[in-house]
């Protein structure tokens, strides 16, 4: 069902954990839907100096979080904000259709962490980061509405 890349990231996830003195923390998803992603970032000179994640969820949720941290490590905030769920899916060599929302969560968790970073700086994040919507499947009458 999963590609080798997904299984590799699931079996050996990169950057798992927390950052005690994080500059921004973002959490998306919810327990009812079966996945929560939490991203911690450390920012220095406008760059993602360090990133760590914790994820509750299925194999692809863990794999998408892992690869997303690799894709933004050392990048500028602008570059990190530009990370799309599509790029995450491509980097993993594809995801099954019903797992695409995991890649959306990965993208959103990074945006949420950056939004939190701006908020802590006293800057309104909305014009920069935009609105972080809840996972789509919850809105489509999925698990959370039952």
């Amino acid at each position, binding site marked *: 069902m999963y590609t080798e890349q997904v*299984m590799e990231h*699931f*079996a050996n*996830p990169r950057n*798992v*954990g927390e950052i005690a003195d994080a500059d921004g923390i973002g*959490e998306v998803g919810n*327990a*009812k*839907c*079966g*996945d*929560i*992603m*939490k991203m911690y970032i450390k920012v220095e000179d406008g760059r993602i100096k360090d990133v760590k*994640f*914790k*994820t*509750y*969820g*299925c*194999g692809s*949720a*863990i794999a998408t979080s892992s690869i997303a941290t690799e894709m933004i490590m050392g990048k500028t905030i602008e570059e990190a904000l530009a990370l799309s769920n599509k790029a995450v899916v491509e980097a993993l060599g594809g995801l099954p259709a*019903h*797992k695409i929302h995991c890649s959306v969560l990965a993208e959103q968790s990074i945006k949420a962490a950056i939004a939190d970073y701006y908020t802590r700086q006293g800057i309104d994040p909305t014009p920069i980061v935009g609105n972080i919507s809840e996972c789509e*499947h919850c809105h489509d009458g*999925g*698990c959370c509405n*039952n």
Partner: protein
Amino acid sequence: MKKLIYADNAATTALSPAVLTKMMPYLTTQYANPSSLYSFSEEAKSAVETAREQVATALGARVNEIYFTSGGSESDNWAIKGFAQAMKKKGKTHIISSAFEHHAVLHTLKALEKQGFTVTLLPVHEDGLVRVDELKAAITPETGLATIMMANNEIGTIQPIKELAAVCKENGVVFHTDAVQAVGHIPVNVDELGVDMLSLSAHKFHGPKGVGALYIRRGVLPAVLIDGGAQERGRRAGTENVAGIVGLGEAITLAVATMDETALKLQELRDYFMDQALQIERSRVNGHRVNRLPGNVNMCFEGIEGESLLLMLDMHGICASSGSACTSGSLDPSHVLLAIGLPHEIAHGSLRLSFGEDTTKEDVDAILQALPPIVERLRAMSPLWERIVKENA
């Protein structure tokens, strides 16, 4: 290559070598159509009838009450749709079932609702058991059929079928049971149970896939589901799956002959596993502890998600199953676990193991060795677990 530990016998079982041997002639030299006139077809015809006798004997039924089908789903569809059509002519339009039936039953009932039938799904409570008085209370003058599974496929709980069927009989309601998980594993006698129709499937007890049977008590007349030729006394058309039917007959005979011994062994392994695995903190057994299939274990581990757990078990060569939403391709966790009252977030973290006659103590120990570190590893990266720990500190 790691040794494969197969603990998913509720999904399917390995075909017994003895069963395959019995099937082989009908996959090779004895290929005749049983309906043909020439003497070459007599062997196939007689093999089908021998299998019918075997199934009838195993269930305590008469041979002319056994109808071969393509499996459990067809048997369920035929019993329910067929009888719904028949009872409608008598003005009966209400069907009673339970909330945690297999989808072969639930989706069949949904289809009937669209045709104007009304359906009541009885609750199954925390222990995974239907209450006899609740069935009684649900019966109305319009009720024509009740369909309640004998043993649940996920949590293995065994329903009081005899009592449920008796209440139906008193009230003139025909009773069907989906016994796909029960036959070959626990005693099933149609007269002792008092059921009118019963579904079974060969591959759940070491027979081949693609073949099953529907027991229909004499005098009960569900409408025909598969129209066509005159096979199965004109009630189920289609050239017989001769090899499959022979396999079913042999498999059910073998399963019944070894049932007591196997059940004892499996119960021991099951209880041993549950006792050991319950030592993992914030874990629970789903469904009644004792009143369940001998080989069924269903547990939840808080703070983790079932699919991740299965993938990690798979890396250890362990085949298991989960009621997590992610494993089903749907967005909701198992309707069975929700029906016994588990909240979504706990139901997502479920694990089903179903041991079979080939399962050894060594297999169970290997799973018990692999499981705690996997749970621990997934919890270590789970923000939900972090929250649970904080809330309970």
